[in-house]
């Protein structure tokens, strides 16, 4: 009966123990020692307990708490055999390790015990017998245990000699406990401790945040207070896991029971940790803090967060370190504070790091005390409790507020940190802390190195072999051993001027160049790419014959790309660093270089556009230009990018900014360009300007009161020719036909046909004729290559009608025709155009040529395509101002097709004003009206609602500007002596406007002519009125501005339209 035996065992064991104790006393051990060994015994008992419980849990439960001592003797006996049974170790590492661990712990004890055992052989044998029996009898032993014993058993059966046992035991214990321990701490041994299903489980329990430790300790306290009724085994609070603790117990109920009544623990939900994750819970990396002087650290919190600091002193007891920082102190604020003046509570910004200047501080009447530090004997300047030395702030902070892991100071930071007084030697010393971050394989055979520390300092040599820590070098100087082993931390790579190197780490990573100067550990390299000097650590480079441009691309952006930085700044990437770009900004006056991060770049600008140079020659990308003004005057090179009238010119002789020069288009000339066009083509800018301040008097020839059409015709012709030249190279948009919508550059103009190189399709198309719509904006000239039909119509009108109207009407004409065909599309166009025209007289001139083209085209078109005819008749109609009949009579007969407009037109002719509003298009401002204009030069027809359109009223002179203005829009009125804001109330038939001054329309009412009026450009979110295009007259909201386009939400339809900003006017708020 096992139990019985156990008890007997127990008794015997106690006997041994007593004897052992006596023996110990005989050995004259101190009572303290004895107590300790007692304790150890206790521990051993506990272990036994555990074993027993693990193995016979149920038994334990049944046997009650008193069974603690019961299994001990058996265990003790078995331990001896465990020692012998080395074989078992491999098979059952876990059991063995547990046991041997115990054995180790009690090493001395067992040693003594074994002697004793040998002395009383008989007894011990009896014990062994006992155990053998017991072991064999225990039915519910686990397999491991049984296996354990079997070999022992058999050995015993073989009557193993007790002396042999003694020898073995002695041999075992002769070894130091340390070595044994080492054996045990191998990973394999630890593996033996992996949890099994028999082990208690870990449960995850929620607790109050920040109270994890407290919760674990409270559980401990509770267990002590309550005693054995608490069934949990342990509680774990991890530093890195907030809000949870782990509790080790066999059953969830035990956990809940233990947590009951503890207010920091919320045990409603208890989660079981899967067995294979249990070890993860307990494996924490011991944070190896080895802070020592000269270690680089970073601040974790406060104003200095992220700043590099150097440790100058470590107080391990108080857990504080003294670090050296570059101060971020706002002296003015400090002065205010010290003088007790009111200090703004919230810190508006963190002052930039700057060395403390004591004199500056004194100037602000800040008290600076110079004191000697008791400990170090150094002098510090004490300012308001802060200590400064050599401009650095010396700050003592908690170790927790600095981070010490993976600190890699950048080159710049270290450079900054080098105080003026410090010489290079100290630098190298502190640099050595950097070497800790070296990667494996830092030194390679053949590298030239220099010793920077120790007796061999400054010895140069070559790497022969690299061990773990040591580098074997072949010294340069003769008379030394062939190779020397030097700790790699005492070595630094060495280069000489003339070496060609490649940077392998740091911000300049990837760059190559030639070493031009060596300053201690810093190399100055002439970069292959930028031809600039770069400073790098010698440690960061390797010798290399490779010539690279370094990295030239981050994300989508590549070196020499034109990028948009924000809505009004852009530039060319002139250098790509590891994390940032250097961008030469598009500021013409002086070179401005900005360092931008990837995320600061909005987009790449790939749009090809053309501008005009000083002589109004078209400049496009790749054209060679010469700079006439500014600091780069005289330089020349191909244009790489054009944006908003700014040219980026690449001059390979220009050594700065990667050869890029930024210049205004207007301060350059195209090399080889002619001046012939001078004055003809207003370039985008001048046009733009014109928009702002419209010259009052239109100068264009067309303005001439309509003379006989033929005359005009001729005039136009002349203009047209001039125009052709100008048109070449212009960017046009095709308005009709298969290539409708495509943009391209005009290659050739021949009569009415142009050859256009399409941007998108990479092909050249020939249009039979064209109509040019000029755009005043920087998006450059857009001319539309139109299928023959439409333009002609217009042209005739122009020709026939008075020239003056043409300007205004030019656009309208288009629409006029267009509406019939496709009402939607074109009108917008003309809308855009009209305003410009109106506003800017000058632009006018350049614009006229297109007209000429049309005219050129007209006759032809007439002849060729019947469609034109509908157009032509109107012109006649003009001459013989019975439009209706004119229409009707026109030979083309087409006019019937274009029936609607005609109706209107005829109606219009007859009773002009009323009709206009009702024009078929439904758009009051429909081109139709405009087209009529030629006849009724007022142009006002377009402004519907004005009602009093007098077709005949010869408002011609001024009307060109006016017609597009509409009531209710906010305008600026320029009058002699004053400019004021007003609201257009009414458009008078004579082309002048009734304007009520005051932004809300409550001031004086004046009448003013168009040239005195300028619309107030709307801003984002303003209510606007559309003054041109199909939507003319509609109101909306400007929801965004994209360059020259405004994004408008139309009130009525809620459509979102993209319209030219020029046709948008700010609506007066009622």
């Amino acid at each position, binding site marked *: 009966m096992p139990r019985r035996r156990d008890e007997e065992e127990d008794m015997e064991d106690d006997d041994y123990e007593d004897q052992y104790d006596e023996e110990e006393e005989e050995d004259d051990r101190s009572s303290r020692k004895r107590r300790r060994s007692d304790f150890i015994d206790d521990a051993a008992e506990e272990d036994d307990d555990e074993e027993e419980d693990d193995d016979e849990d149920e038994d334990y439960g049944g046997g009650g708490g008193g069974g603690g001592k019961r299994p001990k003797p058996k265990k003790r006996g078995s331990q001896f055999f465990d020692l012998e049974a080395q074989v078992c170790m491999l098979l059952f590492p876990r059991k063995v390790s547990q046991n041997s661990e115990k054995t180790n712990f009690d090493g001395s004890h067992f040693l003594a015990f074994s002697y004793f055992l040998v002395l009383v052989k008989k007894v011990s044998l009896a014990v062994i017998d006992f155990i053998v029996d017991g072991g064999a009898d225990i039915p519910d032993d686990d397999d491991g245990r049984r296996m354990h014993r079997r070999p022992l058993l058999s050995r015993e059966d073989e009557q193993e000699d007790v002396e042999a046992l003694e020898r073995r035991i002695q041999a075992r214990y002769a070894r130091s406990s340390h070595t044994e321990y080492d054996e045990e701490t191998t990973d394999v041994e630890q593996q033996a401790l992996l949890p099994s299903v028999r082990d208690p489980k870990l449960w995850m329990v929620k607790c109050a945040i920040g109270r994890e430790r407290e919760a674990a300790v409270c559980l*401990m*306290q509770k*267990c*002590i207070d309550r005693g054995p009724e608490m069934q949990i085994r*342990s509680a774990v609070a991890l530093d890195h896991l907030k809000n949870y603790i782990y509790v080790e117990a066999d059953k969830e109920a035990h956990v809940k029971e233990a947590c009951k009544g503890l207010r920091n623990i919320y045990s409603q939900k208890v989660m079981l940790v899967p067995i294979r994750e249990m070890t993860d819970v307990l494996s924490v990396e011991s944070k190896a803090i080895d802070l020592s002087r000269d270690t680089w650290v970073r601040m974790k919190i406060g104003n200095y967060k992220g700043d590099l600091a150097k440790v100058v002193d470590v107080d391990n007891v108080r857990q504080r370190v003294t670090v050296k920082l570059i101060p971020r102190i706002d002296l003015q604020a400090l002065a205010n504070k010290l003088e007790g003046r009111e200090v703004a509570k919230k810190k508006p910004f963190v002052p930039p790091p700057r060395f403390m200047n004591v004199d500056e501080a004194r100037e602000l009447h800040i008290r600076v005390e110079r004191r000697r530090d008791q400990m170090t004997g150094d002098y510090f300047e004490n300012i308001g409790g802060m200590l400064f030395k050599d401009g650095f702030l010396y700050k003592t902070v908690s170790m927790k507020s600095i981070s010490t892991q993976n600190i890699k100071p950048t080159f710049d930071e270290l450079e900054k940190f080098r105080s003026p007084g410090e010489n290079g030697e100290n630098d190298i010393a502190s640099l050595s802390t950097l070497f800790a971050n070296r990667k494996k394989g830092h030194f390679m055979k053949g590298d030239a190195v220099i010793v920077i520390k120790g007796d061999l300092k400054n010895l140069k040599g070559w790497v022969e072999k690299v061990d773990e820590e040591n580098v074997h070098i072949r010294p340069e100087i003769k008379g030394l051993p062939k190779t020397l082993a030097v700790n790699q931390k005492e070595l630094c790579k060495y280069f000489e001027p003339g070496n060609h190197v490649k940077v392998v780490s740091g911000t300049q990573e990837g760059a190559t160049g030639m070493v031009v100067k060596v300053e201690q550990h810093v190399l100055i390299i002439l970069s292959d790419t930028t031809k600039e000097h770069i400073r790098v650590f010698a440690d960061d480079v390797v010798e290399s014959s490779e010539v690279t441009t370094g990295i030239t691309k981050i994300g989508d952006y590549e070196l020499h790309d034109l990028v948009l930085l924000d809505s009004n700044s852009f530039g060319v990437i002139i250098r790509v660093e590891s994390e940032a770009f250097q961008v030469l900004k598009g500021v013409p006056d002086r070179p401005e270089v900005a360092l931008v991060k990837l995320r600061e770049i909005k987009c790449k600008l790939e749009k090809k556009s053309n501008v005009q140079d000083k002589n109004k020659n078209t400049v496009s990308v790749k054209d060679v230009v010469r700079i006439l003004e500014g600091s780069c005057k005289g330089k020349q090179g191909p244009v790489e990018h054009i944006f908003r009238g700014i040219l980026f010119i690449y001059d390979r002789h220009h050594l700065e900014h990667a050869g890029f020069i930024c210049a205004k288009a207007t301060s350059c000339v195209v090399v080889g360009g002619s001046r012939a066009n001078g004055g003809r083509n207003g370039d985008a800018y001048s046009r733009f300007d014109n928009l702002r301040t419209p010259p009052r008097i239109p100068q264009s020839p067309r303005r001439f009161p309509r003379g006989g059409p033929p005359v005009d015709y001729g005039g136009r012709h002349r203009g047209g020719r001039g125009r052709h030249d100008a048109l070449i190279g212009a960017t046009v948009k095709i308005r009709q036909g298969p290539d409708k919508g495509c943009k391209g550059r005009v290659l050739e103009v021949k009569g009415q046909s142009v050859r256009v190189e399409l941007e998108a399709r990479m092909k050249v198309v020939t249009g039979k004729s064209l109509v040019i719509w000029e755009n005043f904006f920087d998006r450059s000239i857009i001319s539309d290559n139109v299928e023959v039909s439409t333009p002609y119509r217009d042209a005739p009108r122009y020709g026939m009608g008075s020239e003056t109207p043409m300007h205004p009407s030019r656009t309208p004409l288009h629409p006029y025709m267009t509406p019939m065909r496709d009402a939607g599309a074109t009108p917008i166009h003309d809308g855009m155009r009209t305003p410009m025209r109106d506003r800017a007289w000058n632009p006018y001139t350049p614009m006229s040529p297109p007209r000429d083209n049309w005219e050129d085209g007209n006759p032809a078109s007439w002849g060729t395509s019947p469609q034109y005819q509908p157009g032509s008749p109107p012109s006649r109609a003009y001459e013989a101002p019975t439009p209706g009949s004119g229409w009707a009579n026109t030979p083309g007969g087409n006019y019937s097709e274009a029936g609607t407009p005609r109706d209107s037109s005829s109606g219009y002719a007859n009773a002009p004003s009323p009709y206009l509003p009702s024009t078929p298009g439904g758009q009051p401002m429909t081109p139709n009206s405009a087209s009529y204009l030629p006849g009724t030069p007022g142009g006002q027809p377009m402004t519907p609602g004005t009602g009093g359109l007098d077709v005949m009223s010869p408002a011609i002179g001024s009307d060109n500007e006016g017609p597009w203005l509409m009531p209710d829009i906010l305008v600026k009125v320029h009058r002699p002596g004053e400019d004021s804001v007003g609201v257009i109330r009414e458009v008078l038939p004579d082309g002048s406007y009734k304007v009520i001054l005051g932004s809300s329309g409550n001031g004086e009412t004046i009448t003013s002519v168009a040239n005195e009026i300028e619309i107030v450009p709307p801003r984002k979110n303003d209510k606007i009125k559309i003054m041109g295009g199909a939507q003319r007259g509609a109101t909306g909201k400007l929801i965004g501005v994209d360059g020259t386009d405004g994004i408008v939400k139309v009130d009525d339809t809620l459509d979102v339209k993209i319209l030219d900003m020029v046709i948008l006017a700010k609506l007066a708020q009622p």
Partner: protein
Amino acid sequence: MGSAPAQIPTSFGHELRACLRCRLVKTYDQFRESGCENCTFFKMDEDNERVVDCTTPNFNGIISVMDPTRSWAARWLRISRFVPGCYTLAVSEALPEDLQNLCEDERVQYVPPKR
């Protein structure tokens, strides 16, 4: 709970220190007054300077071991033979050499923390 438990920390903040040998966690004052229950031979209670040498505030995580012998966690952490009490999962410093020698003299194991 077989043996008498160690003192339980009276606070949970910066005052806590862990014995570098057995990883028992107590407050500085507790160590000073009654030493370490597992490592009495350090005699921290007799020589208060020892407390600083033998203990560290740099430790990671706390485990309260109620029942060291039957706790898997305690076994895994190799603290199952120590008295019940609050221990830490890991300390980051090694015992000073002279104290390591003391351990050797006392025939107790000392395991330096793994790096």
